[in-house]
């Protein structure tokens, strides 16, 4: 049975184009469906335009959710990327 996982993180920088791109590239490598939720809006984490469209900013709590065979790995990878990628901004 496919597993689902989610984890929350507080952004340390704005989710601008480059961090959104890094997130979507990483999400696209997983078989699981992965989503990002910020302030009640949810986007497909594999869609860079969807992730950018969230307009998530520093200090916001965002949730990464995944469902599928590699859900746990996907959530862990994206949380790590968000922690790193948003530090450098833009």
């Amino acid at each position, binding site marked *: 049975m496919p597993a689902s996982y989610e984890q929350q993180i507080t952004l340390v920088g704005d989710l601008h184009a480059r961090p959104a*791109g890094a997130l*979507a*590239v990483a999400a*696209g490598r997983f078989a699981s469906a992965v989503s990002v939720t910020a302030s009640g809006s949810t986007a497909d984490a594999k869609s*860079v*335009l969807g992730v950018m469209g969230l307009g998530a900013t520093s200090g916001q709590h965002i949730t990464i959710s995944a469902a599928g065979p590699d859900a746990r790995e996907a959530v862990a990878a994206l949380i790590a990327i968000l922690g790193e990628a948003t530090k450098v901004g833009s």
Partner: protein
Amino acid sequence: MTAQPVSTGTVGIVLVSHSAELAAGAAHLAAQVSGGTVTIIAAGGTDDGELGTSAAKVERGLRLAESGLGVVVLPDLGSAVLTVRAVLEDEDPATNVVMADAPFVEGAVAATVTAAAGGDIKAVAAAAEEARNARKL
């Protein structure tokens, strides 16, 4: 799109614009957002550097962008579509090229990110075409 091992090759992207600067700028932006692992070729302007499109530049772009997994081409405005179609008619039928009907900048970024993630040519073209549904506001 299914998960697959990270390989050195990805689907290539060719951006066909009436403006050399616009094609180059969109290519730069898409490369920055996607992490720089995808071959993106800017084919903008006419052969003598004016506003317009060039079959020779498109043909060269297709060759440079092909790494064995196919190429997705994004045209900006109407007659860029005609130029790409004319080039594709002369290509070997085995050539693996898809022209995407997509907004230019958003499509370039979405296609390149999907290519960087290891998406196949269908997934990359679909990502570009889905860009028209992404709301900015």
